[in-house]
């Protein structure tokens, strides 16, 4: 046999890389836990689409003023309950136009029902422009930031108006209101879950790690909280929030209320994980090697179940959003002038009104999309985090 320089191969005949450049199968062996999760997550198509949707939603929520076309609280008596404005690309006279445009809106009064009806005024054309200067706003209400006036969509001529999702019974633009409510509803989801995460990890961890009577006590409390139906309990607690509190305080108290009941789910997951991990060999090995308890918890146990915690959190966010929406819908949650999707849906409660103006239900559609996106993403994360999934 002539000794020759050749690329080292493994049994299957695949080329093997060196330590500094793993390739092919070996990449899987040296990849970190998070890289493995990411690769598995990538394969889950619906989850990837969901991530894009969530990024869009939160982007719009963060830059709400930029994306809205009109001030959300601006009432307009001459534009009550208009149907959504249609965007056109083709005008019979002017022909095809690359830039989208809308027609003007004219208002007639039906002589029999005395109800206003709105029609397109084909004589007037307003081209829709992007990145225009519109009404002034302070980004996130910061006083130090200079007044901005850049908007994503709008018109640069006086009198141009487009109500993408119609208007409500006070003439307010539904699209702009949805965009601003997104900020409130989505942030309550994150903040509420964050609070219940702290409580859940703390109490669930104590329960799982120490066992004994601590575990028993906390478990009884969790069972007790779970056995009371949530909505009646929320209603009772939310009714306790005084009417004359400022909106920010109401916002925080609602968030805290929701977290106080939602932490039980996370606590159970954490406790389960702790209980099973406590018996693992590597914990015993760490103990024998002389680590103290805190180090064992933080350095060895926490990374093992962190992925599951992330999946549970992602699945709790839509529940929190739905709870806040339900509460606000009943009138017990956020109050004007703070708007959320639930508050907007209160206008749609009257079935006669809704059958005449179905666009008032559009916040509901956005809610469904948000919840679905989070559910898909959470499913993808859960499948990616589970080491035993096929």
């Amino acid at each position: 046999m002539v000794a020759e320089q050749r690329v080292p191969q493994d049994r299957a005949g695949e080329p093997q890389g060196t330590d500094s450049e793993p390739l092919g199968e070996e990449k899987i062996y040296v990849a970190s836990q998070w890289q493995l999760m990411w690769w598995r997550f990538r394969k889950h198509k619906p989850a990837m689409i969901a991530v894009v949707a969530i990024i869009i939603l939160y982007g719009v929520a963060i830059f709400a003023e930029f994306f809205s076309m009109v001030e959300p609280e601006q009432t307009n008596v001459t534009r009550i309950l208009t149907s959504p404005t249609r965007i056109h690309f083709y005008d019979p006279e002017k022909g095809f136009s690359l830039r989208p445009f809308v027609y003007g809106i004219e208002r007639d009064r039906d002589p029999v029902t005395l109800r206003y009806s709105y029609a397109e005024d084909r004589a007037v054309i307003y081209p829709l422009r992007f990145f225009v200067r519109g009404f002034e706003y302070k980004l996130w209400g910061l006083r130090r930031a200079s007044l901005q006036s850049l908007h994503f969509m709008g018109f640069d001529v006086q009198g141009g108006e487009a109500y993408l999702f119609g208007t409500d019974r006070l003439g307010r633009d539904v699209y702009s209101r949805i965009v601003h409510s997104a900020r409130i509803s989505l942030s309550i989801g994150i903040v509420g879950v964050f609070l219940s995460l702290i409580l859940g990890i703390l109490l669930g961890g104590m329960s799982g790690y120490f066992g004994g009577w601590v575990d028993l006590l906390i478990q009884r409390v969790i069972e007790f909280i779970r056995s009371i139906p949530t909505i009646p309990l929320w209603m009772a607690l939310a009714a306790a929030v005084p009417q004359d509190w400022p909106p920010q305080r109401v916002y925080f108290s609602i968030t805290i209320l929701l977290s106080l009941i939602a932490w039980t789910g996370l606590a159970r997951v954490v406790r389960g994980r702790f209980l099973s991990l406590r018996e693992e060999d590597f914990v015993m090995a760490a103990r024998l090697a002389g680590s103290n308890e805190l180090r064992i918890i933080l350095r060895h146990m926490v990374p093992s179940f962190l992925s599951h915690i992330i999946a549970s959190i992602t699945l709790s966010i839509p529940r929190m959003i739905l709870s806040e929406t339900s509460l606000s819908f009943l009138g017990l949650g956020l109050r004007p002038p703070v708007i959320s999707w639930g508050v907007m849906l209160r206008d749609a409660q009257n079935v006669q009104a809704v059958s005449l103006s179905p666009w008032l239900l559009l916040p509901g559609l956005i809610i469904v999309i948000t919840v679905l996106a989070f559910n898909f993403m959470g499913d993808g994360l859960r499948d990616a985090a589970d080491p035993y999934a096929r």
Partner: protein
Amino acid sequence: MGNYILKRALLALPTLLVVSMVTFFVIELPPGDFLTSYVAQLRASGDYLDQVQIDKLRERYGLDRPVYERYYKWMAGIARGDFGYSLEWKKPVRELIGDRVLLTLILTATTMLATWLVAIPIGVLSATKQYSFADHLTTTFGFIGLGTPGFLLALVVMFLAYRYLGSNVSGFFSPDFQNATWSWARIVDLLKHLWLPVLVLGVNGTAGLIRTMRANLLDELHKPYVETARAKGLRERRLLWKYPVRLALNPFVSSAGWMLPQLFSGATIVSVVLSLPTVGQMLLRSLQSQDMYLAGSLLLVISVLTILGTFVSDIALGLMDPRIRF
């Protein structure tokens, strides 16, 4: 077995007690009491009560006693069957909630039954014909069902029914049967109106059940005993229903108890939207007007029903699964 039942019963009793205390505490939370909102109402309509009258009323209704005394009086009354007096409706609470509790129970039980009857076969179908068109269809429906909040679905269904059926389908009974005594015709009328709330309430639970059933059954179907049975010649359908489905059903019975609180919550919101005379809807009104005894009794009734339900489901689980014996 008897030991097990006894143990669960012993656990349920202190829970009931704590629930009643928490309920009372929660009702006491809002600042002021019924009299303050009553006086405010009178003032808004032009009437006026001077301080002496207010104090007298307060004494008469026992609102000036300390908290623990009022709680004790309330609990003592409940033990006797007297749930207190509704200050808003000016009637004893017992008269108000009797009929509503029955209707709420009917709604909840029917929804639970319908959910199980629909979800289990669909879940089995979805698991056995994995990745087929039917499977994808049910998965999509499942996701949409999970994502839509109850009240939104109620609104949409109400809107569709109004537009396309033309009638106002809210309420449990037609006007003629509203206050009639129970008869066969009344039951039929109830069923005719019941499908809408049950549909709305059940979608959420059904979607979740289908998903869980599918996942559980898929796990079971890959186990060796299924292959053995198939190799031995057992017919597919008999094989399917006799073994894996039974095992896959196990988590359901244990979670059936926890379905109850969710059902009661969902029923509350849906009945507010559809204006059904259930316990939840009355609870909302009484909370808004701070009618203490009514709200407290309603909350207590809901919690007691829930705890009883979980108790029954624990027993059922113990009966079904011989591995659970304490």
